[in-house]
C-alpha cells in the first residue's frame, strides 16, 4: 500500500515550548489511523501544521509524494484533504442542507461558474444523499445552530466528506456524542472509508472508539511519537501505559 500522507520531522515551537517536537509518520492509502495521547501532547497542533492552519517551524509534509508544507488550508482542501474540528465548527445560521452545499461548492467549477451557474452548484442531490446517510433527514431545512450537540457533530463530519476528499483528518469526532449516536457515527465512518476509499486520521480520547475503528494507532506524548502499531500492540506497550497511567 502506498502512502497518502508522509510527515517528516515536523516541529512547531511556541516561544520556548516545543508543542510538536520532530514527528514523523506516514498514512497508508485506505487506512484509518488513530492518533491518541494525553491532553496537551501536541495532537491538534500536529493536525494544524499538516493542514496549513499553522506554519511548522521545521519539517516536511508530503501528499501523494508531493511536498505540500506551507500550503494554505483552502489549497490543501482543493487537493483532497479535509478535516473536522474538535470544537463545533458549523455555520449556525445556514440550514443543514446549505451547510453541506457550502462544504462542496468550491470543488465544483471555477469562480466564474459559481457566480453565473446554478445557485446550489448542482449539489442539492449530493447534499440530500449525505443528509440521508447521516440520518439528518428531518433536520435538512433547520438552521444548523438549532441542532443538538451530537447532531452538529454529525453535520460537521458530513461536511468534511462533501468535497469527495481522499484524506480526512478528524479531530475528536466522538467528543460529547452520546453512546447510541456514537455507534451510528462509527458505522458511517467505516462505510465511507470502505465505499469511497477515503483515508482517515482520527484524534480521539475515547479508547474503545479508537481501538475498534482504527487499523493502526499512533501514540503521542510531549510532542513526540511514543508508539505506533496495531491497536492490540499499542494497548500492551509499557511506554503507553506509563504515559497514560503514570505520574
Amino acid at each position, binding site marked *: 500500500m502506498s502512502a497518502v500522507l508522509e510527515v517528516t520531522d515536523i516541529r512547531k515551537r511556541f516561544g520556548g515550548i516545543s508543542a510538536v517536537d520532530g514527528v514523523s509518520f506516514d498514512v497508508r492509502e485506505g487506512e484509518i489511523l488513530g492518533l491518541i495521547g494525553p491532553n496537551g501532547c501536541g495532537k491538534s497542533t500536529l493536525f494544524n501544521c499538516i493542514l496549513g492552519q499553522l506554519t511548522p517551524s521545521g519539517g516536511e509534509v508530503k501528499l501523494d509524494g508531493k511536498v505540500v508544507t506551507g500550503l494554505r488550508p483552502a489549497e490543501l482542501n482543493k487537493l483532497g484533504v*479535509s478535516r473536522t474540528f474538535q470544537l463545533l465548527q458549523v455555520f449556525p445560521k445556514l440550514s443543514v442542507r446549505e451547510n453541506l452545499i457550502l462544504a462542496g461548492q468550491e470543488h465544483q467549477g471555477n469562480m466564474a461558474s459559481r457566480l*453565473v451557474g446554478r445557485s446550489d452548484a448542482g449539489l442539492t442531490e449530493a447534499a440530500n444523499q449525505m443528509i440521508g446517510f447521516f440520518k439528518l433527514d428531518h433536520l435538512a431545512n433547520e438552521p444548523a445552530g438549532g441542532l443538538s450537540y451530537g447532531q452538529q457533530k454529525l453535520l460537521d463530519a458530513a461536511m468534511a466528506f462533501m468535497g469527495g476528499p481522499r484524506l480526512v483528518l478528524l479531530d475528536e469526532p466522538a467528543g460529547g456524542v452520546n453512546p447510541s449516536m456514537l455507534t451510528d457515527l462509527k458505522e458511517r465512518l467505516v462505510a465511507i472509508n470502505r465505499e469511497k476509499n477515503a483515508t482517515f486520521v482520527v484524534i480521539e480520547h475515547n479508547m474503545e472508539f479508537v481501538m475498534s475503528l482504527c487499523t493502526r494507532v499512533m501514540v503521542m506524548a510531549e510532542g513526540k511519537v511514543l508508539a505506533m502499531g496495531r491497536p492490540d500492540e499499542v494497548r500492551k506497550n509499557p511506554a503507553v501505559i506509563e504515559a497514560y497511567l503514570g505520574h
Partner: protein
Amino acid sequence: MSGFGKPLKIALGLLVIAGLIVVPMNFNRYGLFILSQWAVMTIAAMGLNLTLGYAGQVSLAQGAFVGIGAYAAAIMTTHGWPLPAAILVAIVLSFAVGWVLGYPALRVQHHYLAFVTLAFSTLAFLVFRNESWLTGGIYGISNIPRPHFFGIPTNKPLPFYYVCLGSLAIVSLAVWWLIRSPWGRAFMALRENPLRAQSLGIDTRRYTLMAFAIGSALGGVAGALYAPLTQYIDPVPFNLSLSLDLLMMVIVGGAGFYFGPFLGAMIAVLLPEWLRFTEGYYLMLYAVAVMLLLIWSPTGILGILDRYLAARRTKAASALRAVAKSRLEAAQ
C-alpha cells in the same frame, strides 16, 4: 423569511413595484427628489449590506465610494460623455479601489478594520476637496447634465426618478442573484466562520476582496446617479457622516437581510421629512427613535420580523409534536 405563502409574497412584491411606479406620478418636485434619493441611497446601502451584512466585513468608507462614483459621473458627463458610460467607469473605478481597500481586511477585523476604512474615508474626502484641477475643490462641479434615454430627456424630476428606480431594480436583481449564488453562500461563510470556510476549500482571501470590491462598486453606482440627481456636487455630502448614515441604514433595516437596505434607506431619508413638522426637534426625535429601535432589536427592523416568524415556526413544530405524542400515547 418563510412563513408567508409564495404567491402572497409575489403579489405583495408586484403591488409595491406598481405603487412605486404609479403613486409618484402626482408628486411634486420635492417629493420626487426625496424618493429618487431613497432609490439612490438604497443602492449604496445594498452594497454595504453585502460587505457588512453578508460577508461580515465592517466598512466606514461606503460614503467615499458614493463620492468616487459621483465625481466620476460629474466629470465625465460635464465633458460630454453619456451617463451609462460614466456609470460603467464609476463601477470599474470603485470596484478597483474597493478591492485594494479589502487588503487590510485580510489582516485586521472588526473595529480595527472600521478604523482603517475610516482613514480611507477621510483620505477620499481630502482628495475631493484639495485636488481642484480635477474635482473643482470646494466650489465643486455644477451644471451636471441629465441623460436622454431612447430620445426621452430626463431633465424633469419624474423621468429621472424612473431612471433611479430602474437602476434600483437592476441592482436589486443582481444582488438577489449574487446572494443566492455560491458566492453569496461563501460570503456568509466568511461572516459566520472563516476558519471552517478555509478548511472547506473556500478561498477566504479572494472572497473577502470580492465582498469589498462588489459592495464598493454598488456605492459607485449610487454616486453616479447622485450626481445627475442633484446636478451639483461638492465634497461635503461625501464626508464621513454619509458613511455613518449608510451604516445606520444597513443596521436599522437589518444587516444581512435582503430587504434591510430598502427599509433602512426609507427610514433614513423619509423619517426626517415626516418629522419636519416638529421643527427644531426632528433630529432629536429621529435619534431617539433609532436608539430605541436598536435597544429593542439590535438586528434591526427585519430582525424583529425574523424573530416573530421563527417563534411561530417553533410553536407550530411543538404543536405538531404534542399532537404526535398524544396520538402515540393513545395508541399504546
